[in-house]
């Protein structure tokens, strides 16, 4: 860009008239005031290497806090010598998600089947134990890995349930229709906190003493059901966007109800609501820290725990920035991933 171009770009975009000029100058001043001191604190004056709080003497950010506690932030209290199991589970997950980009379209349904039905079992056995692996109670699960587990479980639980609920809401059978409407409205009408409290605290009081469902499982199912109501409404939006002709065409070919929905209607409907679904799943991801309130320590919970260790007091800002970056990074990743899906599935001709 040459000088003339920059000048005209500035003129058009930042200083097109007097009030835009004032706003631009104001923003510029704010940026100049904030950014240098932030960079100074976060990078130039920060301490990156060390083992204790005492190593941070420079007056800037103490990233030592993050590096020392990193393992706890990621894995919670999961026993050290068993960490490979969590890692392996997530490597399998990442590889199978990535492989979807490289294999032939024909194989993709199998990958999906694996992710939804087989991987959860493998992952559960790996992380929880069984088949010769030592049992690791859910009590010690935590950190970012717990955040991921809950998000993944929430998605594969909420998505199929949401699809069924969306179809049910448009069903011609009144029992199914009104049941689905009541279900969705009920779960959409109560706050997530209430669901978590009910799952974690009230539910066990209703069960016989020897019959114990794991707290994390209760919470995860509560979270999954809660999100399914939102997924259902998003997908219903997609269903409604389809012209009647699609249904009629499918029926005239003699397709059954399920065949029509799974081959003709849903693929088109879901494709149109990918942005809405992404929204819901990102919201689910960001809702997981609420489980702190029922005593489960995911990423934010672990950071809270670490910053209140008496030898690490005063690290709140570093901790929260770290959590913020992690959440932003993975939400952005999810958003980019679904954008690529959107492009791929786009059948619009330009």
């Amino acid at each position, binding site marked *: 860009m040459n000088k003339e171009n920059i000048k005209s770009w500035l003129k058009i975009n930042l200083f097109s008239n007097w009030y835009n000029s004032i706003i631009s100058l104001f923003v510029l001043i704010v940026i100049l005031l904030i950014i240098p001191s932030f960079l100074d604190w976060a990078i130039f004056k920060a301490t990156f290497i060390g083992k204790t709080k005492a190593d941070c003497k420079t007056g800037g950010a103490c990233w030592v806090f993050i590096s020392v*506690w990193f393992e706890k932030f990621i894995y919670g209290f999961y026993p050290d010598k068993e960490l490979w199991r969590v890692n392996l589970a997530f490597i399998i997950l990442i590889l199978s998600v990535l492989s979807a980009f490289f294999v032939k379209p024909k194989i993709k349904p199998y990958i999906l089947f694996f992710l939804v039905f087989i991987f959860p079992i493998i992952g559960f056995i790996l992380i929880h134990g069984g088949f010769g692996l030592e049992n690791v109670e859910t009590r010690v699960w935590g950190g970012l890995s717990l955040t991921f587990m809950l998000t993944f479980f929430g998605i594969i639980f909420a998505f199929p349930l949401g699809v069924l609920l969306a179809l049910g809401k448009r069903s011609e059978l009144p029992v199914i229709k009104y049941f689905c409407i009541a279900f969705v409205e009920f779960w959409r009408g109560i706050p997530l906190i209430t669901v978590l409290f009910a799952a*974690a605290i009230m539910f*066990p009081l209703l069960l016989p003493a020897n019959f114990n469902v794991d707290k994390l499982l209760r919470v995860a199912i509560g979270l999954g059901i809660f999100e399914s109501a939102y997924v259902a409404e998003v997908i219903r939006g997609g269903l409604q966007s389809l012209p009647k002709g699609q249904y009629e065409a499918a029926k005239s070919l003699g397709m059954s109800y399920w065949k029509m929905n799974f081959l003709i209607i849903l693929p088109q409907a879901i494709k149109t609501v990918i942005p809405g679904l992404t929204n819901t799943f990102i919201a689910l991801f960001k809702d997981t820290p609420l489980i702190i309130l029922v005593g489960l320590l995911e990423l934010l919970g672990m950071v809270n725990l670490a910053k209140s*260790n008496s030898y690490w007091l005063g690290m709140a800002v570093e901790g929260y920035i770290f959590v913020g970056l992690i959440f932003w990074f993975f939400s952005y990743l999810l958003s980019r991933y679904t954008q690529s899906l959107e492009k791929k599935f786009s059948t619009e001709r330009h």
Partner: protein
Amino acid sequence: MKKITTNSFAILAFVATFIFATFSANANQTRENVIKRGSLNCGVSQGVPGFSNADASGKWTGIDVDFCRAVAAAILGDANKVKFTPLSAKDRFEVLKAGDIDVLARNTTWTLSRDGGLALDFIGTNFYDGQGFMVRKAANINSAKKLNNVKVCVETGTTTELNLRDYFKANKLKYEPVAFTKSDEAVAAYDSGRCDVYTTDKSGLAANRTKTKNPADHIILPETISKEPLGPVVRGNDENWANITRWTLNVMIEAEELGITKANVDTLKSTDNPAIKRLLGLEGETGKNLSLSNEWSYNIIKQVGNYGESYEANVGTKTPVGLGRGLNQLWTKGGILYSPPVR
């Protein structure tokens, strides 16, 4: 129609049995459950400096944690057989009632409404806390009575805020509260000069002082304006369990009074002092009264230590929490720690 009624009665009876079983199942068998399980389930905080906290290797430490370890030592003979469950302030009592944990040691203030209204038992006080004030040294204030026309940083929605109002009203002093939802925010605001005073429980004051830019610039005023006895809690339907936990705490206090420490407990076994002999289970049958082995008290002291040792290691002046003994000193040394006789 008749059949339906019979059926629904059967179902009702079934459900009722289940519910009854739920509520009666926990009664009077916590000790057996712990022994059967081979570990104690202890509810702790999600991180309170010096009381219950984990370090970067995942090991729990703190004065409340030590109490749980002592209970495990008393029953199972091994202080390491404890599983810690972090709980929020909101779900702690429900989790205890539901039976997920055997004892709650989560810096919980003992009040009448909690003790009487929740079907729970507070078994003692392992830390006498109370609200205090922190001010800047430069302000030249040495007593809370001299706080007038000050801005006070305080956490909102806590009893702290109410105590603050009561104190200033009772002493006819003027103040302006500046409320925050998190202690970190309140401390940061105080540190940046938005307030003259920061107030919270004294256990938190000293810990929060370390969060300021220059901790040496701030002092904690001597006055304590509220009573916050923090203690472990158990379910109210198990007399034996309440006794075990209560006397575990008493043994720790009594051991300090008699000068028994982790280090000297083995040499003191050959002492002639009858009080020490009784406490170590060499005389009398203290364990039998609690349905425990007679080494229970020895195990507590040997594996966890006496109260003073636990205090100094977790919240004492050599730790970042930096609290003097204050009220938490033995009654013989000017505090109010007093164990009924272990005999």
